[in-house]
């Protein structure tokens, strides 16, 4: 028991941080709430570093401390800190400011539970924990669009989570165990395996906004405060994708699950970019782009278990994606929500504009930026397991994505003079940090792979 608790100290630290932030809010001290939150998450990240290289399970195999869950902490905790700094600009001075920080941390805790899930009940717990906190966050502004978005999000989540629980009950019935590692014992009952797998894909796919379970995402992103949209597009999504990775590790290959993943990947990438091509609202554009990026993750997930490259590619792309997507949303927080707001940004705010170009080029996947390394490894993993056609489709989609992202870049440098934009110091810091991360991940990837750190 003592050993188990020692291994989940980072999670405990995150939980205590959330409670601390909530208590500070009850005392009407939102500033202190933010300070507690930031310090707590940084400490949590630090405590995780100690665990690098561990590969074990705790509590009878129901929670895993492995490469995936450790890197989930190293990626998601800093991403949450940056999201909170973004959120501060949105909610500063409003009533219940501290609850936003607290809810963000609870939701992140849910994503961490998902990423380390070794038991189907942890999947449900994580999905509910992230879900409940994020519904409230989307509805926070208390405006009609926000309420409507939160309502849609809620209905969608309820239905898909219900389907997931229904499917998981088949797994439990067939194998007599809720441990994911016991899935192979159901070899004789392929239909039960399939039913449960599809249900898990529905339940986690909605959270990762995979097509065709993505419908809530554009509306929710648009209705929610910008910072919450940035958070939704990164933290719960990565948590869900890591959870999916934990599940498919133990699925027998005969069920053909890899082909289903490939199909969803093609749908998500293609539909996401095509829909993004016609958006005039930058937030909706980024929403569809993040749907497409989810599709890229699936290239690595379908190689899990068969290719050495699968886990490093998923982790590196997750880190890259977190940095560049948060950065792009931060720039949108500075510039504005429509494409028109971006015209002339290259002249009025040259450094911010350059940062945006870096994020977008990284999203396209151009060397030496982080997105390139991530996609490169994902393609390599897919080719490794004989899904060459899928890698080709993904590469074609990357070319298509250039057209999507150029729609933001072109007005920045062509448009007339825009009114000079106010720049909050914290927003500037977030942009700087994410640009730095985009470069460091891009250049340091080789180092990390060679040293076997990911």
């Amino acid at each position: 028991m003592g050993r188990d608790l020692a291994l989940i100290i980072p999670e405990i630290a995150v939980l205590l941080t959330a409670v601390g932030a909530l208590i500070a809010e009850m005392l009407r001290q939102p500033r202190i709430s933010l300070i507690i939150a930031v310090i707590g998450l940084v400490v949590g990240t630090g405590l995780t570093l100690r665990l690098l290289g561990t590969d074990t399970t705790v509590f009878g195999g129901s929670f895993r401390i492995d490469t995936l869950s450790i890197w989930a902490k190293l990626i998601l905790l800093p991403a949450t800190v940056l999201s909170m700094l973004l959120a501060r600009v949105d909610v500063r001075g409003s009533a219940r400011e501290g609850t936003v920080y607290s809810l963000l941390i609870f939701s992140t805790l849910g994503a961490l539970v998902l990423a380390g899930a070794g038991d189907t009940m942890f999947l449900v717990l994580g999905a509910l924990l992230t879900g409940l906190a994020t519904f409230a966050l989307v509805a926070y502004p208390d405006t009609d669009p926000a309420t409507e978005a939160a309502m849609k999000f809620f209905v969608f989540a309820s239905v898909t989570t219900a389907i997931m629980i229904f499917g998981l009950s088949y797994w439990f019935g067939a194998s007599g165990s809720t441990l994911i590692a016991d899935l192979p014992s159901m070899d004789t009952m392929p239909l039960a395996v399939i039913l449960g797998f599809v249900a898990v894909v529905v339940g986690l796919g909605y959270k990762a906004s995979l097509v065709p379970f993505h419908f809530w995402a554009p509306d929710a992103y648009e209705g929610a405060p910008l910072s919450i949209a940035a958070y939704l597009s990164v933290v719960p999504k990565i948590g869900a994708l890591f959870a999916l990775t934990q599940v498919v590790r133990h699925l027998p290959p005969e069920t053909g699950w890899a082909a289903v993943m490939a199909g969803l990947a093609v749908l998500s990438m293609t539909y996401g970019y095509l829909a993004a091509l016609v958006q005039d609202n930058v937030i909706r554009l980024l929403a569809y782009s993040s749907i497409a990026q989810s599709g890229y993750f699936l290239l690595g997930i379908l190689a899990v278990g068969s290719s050495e490259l699968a886990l490093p590619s998923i982790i590196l792309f997750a880190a890259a994606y977190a940095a560049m997507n948060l950065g792009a949303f931060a720039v949108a927080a500075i510039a504005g929500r429509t494409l028109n707001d971006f015209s002339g940004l290259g002249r009025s705010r040259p450094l911010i504009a350059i940062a945006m170009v870096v994020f977008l080029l990284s999203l396209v996947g151009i060397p030496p930026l982080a997105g390139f390394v991530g996609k490169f490894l994902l393609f390599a993993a897919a080719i490794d397991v004989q899904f060459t056609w899928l890698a080709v489709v993904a590469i074609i989609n990357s070319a298509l994505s250039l057209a999507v992202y150029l729609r933001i870049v072109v007005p920045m440098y062509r448009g007339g003079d825009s009114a000079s934009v106010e720049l909050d110091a914290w927003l500037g810091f977030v942009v700087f940090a994410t640009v730095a991360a985009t470069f460091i991940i891009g250049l340091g990837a080789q180092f990390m792979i060679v040293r076997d750190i990911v």
Partner: protein
Amino acid sequence: MSAVLLPILPPLIAALAVLILRRGSAALALAGATLSLAGGVRLLAGALDGQAETLLLPGLPDMPLRLVSGPMTALLSVAVATVGTFVLIYAIGYMKRESGQARFYAVMSLFLAAMQALVLAGDWVLFLAAWELIGLCSYLLIGFWFQRPEAANAASRAFLYTRSADLGLYVAIFILIGSSGTSEIAAYLEAGGSASTAAGLLLLLAAMGKSAQVPLQDWLMRAMAGPTPVSALLHSATLVAAGAILLIRSATLLSPEALFAIGLVGGITTVAAGVIALAERDLKRLLAASTASQYGLMLIAVGAGVPTAALLHLLAHAAIKSTLFLAAGDFQHAREGTAFDQLKGVGRARPWAFAGFALAALALAGIPPLSGFFSKDAVIAAALSGQGAAWLGPLALAGTLLTGAYMGRALRVLWQGSGDSRPVEGTGWMRAGIWGLAIPAAGLGLAFGPLETILDLPAPETAGTVAIVLGLVAALVGLALGWLVPVQRLLGPAHQWAESGLEVAGGLTAWIGRPAMAVARGCDRLEDHLYAAALAIGHTALSIARGGERLEQRLYLAVLGVGRANLAVGRWVRSGDERGIDGLIFALVAGVRDLGARARTLQSGLIHHSLAISAVATAVLLAILFSASLSV
């Protein structure tokens, strides 16, 4: 820190410093270039002692970025830094009256840093990155006066031409990495055969774009719309030289077929561009055409299998051509233009600049003991003795003859006429830049002997008496013809065609410009179609949704109907005087009606519709997997 970084970092830091400080930009840029020169000299000294340094930087998995300092790369690095330093000294005077100094010096410094990275690159990925950077910098510099339409136009044209040829480099590098398994440039091709021929031809394509070889020569003449120091740097040691450097460095990898094609392209270019130069009526455009012609000579040497000769000519040409351009810039300030009509006799008014120009012109023509004499002899000897001598020998000699002729013509225009001039600011700086380069242009030939021994490339055969005599005769005859015979008589009926830049079938505009525009329009149309398709999908979805809404209205009516029925029952029951139940039912009916209305407002979006799609998709997934598992 490794010494290999020393030539690259100072100009890079200078570029950043200029951008951030925005003052003292000329001094910062000059300091960067000078330090880069010192770094290059240090590398060369190390290389002479036989220390080849390699620096590995993290890059792609299994393909680290590497910087290599060997005899050849260190020598090129020194050449780049030398030209860069003196051009910057000159630019202090030349750019005195211009606005946008910070932009100019920042981009020039970045240009130098990128070129040093290209020269020292030891792997294809870094080479490619530097290659793209110098393309970008040259675009910014040619378009420095972007307010003038012809400058903006020329910049776009240069970018489009060199970029479309760059595609060759991308594919070639894929082939090279694929067939040798490593991204290192020094690695020899083990596969050989068709892969090495294909890669060679694609590299040639890339080099043709950058080094302005026929038929991609047109952009170089138009690029003269940029500031003159830019032209000097572009033509002597950076952008245009990159193409030749690419071929010189990869010469050992290529198959005989690819080498033959390289030699042939070079031969045709040296003659065609020489004729164009002869017919030009503008000094800077003449020099530009001459650049293409001289790079043609270098390609001949590469094609003949003697890259050392090409390298020597590249070095001599770097000093010579930068001197010529800097002097031309001096004349340009004196007479407000570079057209021959404006320049008549300017040499008498600007004797220092003219002396530098004449020295470099004679060196380019190949008059002993100036540097061009030695390097051109090496090229001619290579062409006469290497493979394909029957083709390459006569072409190289014709190129030499034409070089003499257009230089003779230029000298005559500059010398004959009245010698008046406007006062020129910054003459001291400009004179220092010109003479700093004219001296190596004259004396570099003496260093060629020792240089050949330290380069680890197949040494050129010693120029036989035949090559020396033929080369000298061609140069002298050319000079005499150019000075004495008017160009219209010299070229005869071909004159007009040459004046139009030897355009074939509508020129390159028809070959590259229009296809590029067609592709762009195609993309535009595709996007329109995609948009229309997305709209159509949207409309279909909407109509489905409307159908759903209608269904829902029916349901609502049905609910209402049930409610009314309940009401009727209630009335009926009330008639039985049971008041308590009556009130309860009434409240229930009102509640149902209220709920229905609320549901309707909540359903303003299409969530039932999207959930239905998700459900259908789930069913499809299940069906696919089930059928797959049943069929197994």
